């Protein structure tokens, strides 16, 4: 009788393992399939100032599994200490770029025409508006670009110092 009790205990522990394994498999795959359908936010992985054409060159990554379309953008220019250019704000500039999953797109952000070239300390805050196929809503991603050394690439992650 005691032997049967011990075997029952062994079976109970074994059952826990089998149940955890089977349940873990099903739960993992359900979660993975749900996560795969969540649209990601585009990430600006690289930003550079193109002095010749007076524009910013962004490298934008789509880390998700759904295509994202960048519709338009707006820029806000905050002057640094060494520039003569006044602050300005331009909005609703059409873009029309679609980024496929796991791809990087090059996005040209034109500064205001007849504006002076960027000087050290200037901040260009770019807001890119994008949509994804699952929703009619419009989302936005804001990238503050601080111009520090002439011609060098600068990716600012702290949000920039506002004057």
């Amino acid at each position, binding site marked *: 009788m005691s032997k049967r009790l011990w075997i029952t205990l062994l079976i109970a522990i*074994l059952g826990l393992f*089998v149940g955890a394994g089977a349940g873990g498999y099903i739960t993992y795959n359900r979660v993975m399939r749900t996560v795969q359908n969540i649209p990601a936010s585009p990430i600006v992985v690289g930003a550079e100032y193109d002095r010749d054409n007076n524009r910013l060159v962004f490298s934008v990554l789509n880390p998700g599994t759904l295509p994202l379309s960048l519709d338009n953008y707006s820029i806000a220019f905050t002057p640094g200490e060494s520039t003569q250019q006044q602050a300005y704000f331009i909005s609703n500039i059409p873009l029309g770029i679609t980024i496929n999953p796991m791809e990087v797109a090059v996005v040209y952000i034109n500064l205001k025409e007849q504006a002076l070239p960027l000087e050290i300390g200037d901040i260009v805050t770019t807001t890119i508006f994008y949509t994804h196929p699952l929703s009619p809503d419009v989302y936005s991603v804001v990238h503050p670009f601080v111009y520090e050394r002439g011609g060098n690439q600068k990716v600012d992650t702290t949000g920039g110092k506002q004057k």
Partner: protein
Amino acid sequence: MKKVENIVGGLIFALFLILLLAGIMGIVLFWPRYPEDIAFLLGFLSFWLLANRLLFGYSQFINVSELLVSGIEPDRNYIMDRIGQPRSFLETLSIPFLLMAWLQELDKYKYTYYTAFLLITLLSILFKFNLLGYGIVGNYIEGTFWGAAVITFIVFSLELIAHTYVDDIMEITTGKPEEVANG
């Protein structure tokens, strides 16, 4: 002691019923939507089909052995119908030996079943460690393996419990061990 055993048995049975209800509720709530769920179900059902004779065989064996151990003579014909041996030979055996023959009869189904399970386990391990290329089928093979593992767990536990009755049955044929030593 017998009373305590009955109470514990009743509690375990009640727990089993609750778990069964929860399982049915779970099936209704999480109806298979994804191919992985269907792979799991297919593995479960096909291995159940393969193990059906074992599941019922061991359960009936445990029931009959429990009858014999508690002192009630089980029906001879019921046992003899379940053994694939000539009837004239089975007539010569006493009930404990008939039960042993029944257990032996189930062995061939048991090893067939375990071989099939071993194959799916090996295949799933090969896919899991990317030795055949995980690809598209690997995940579904793993689902089939987990479905089969649930059935294998039930077969394994029934088999273990059934084999604990061998000693009790043998005691009935040969008498108590101490009596044999004394006599």
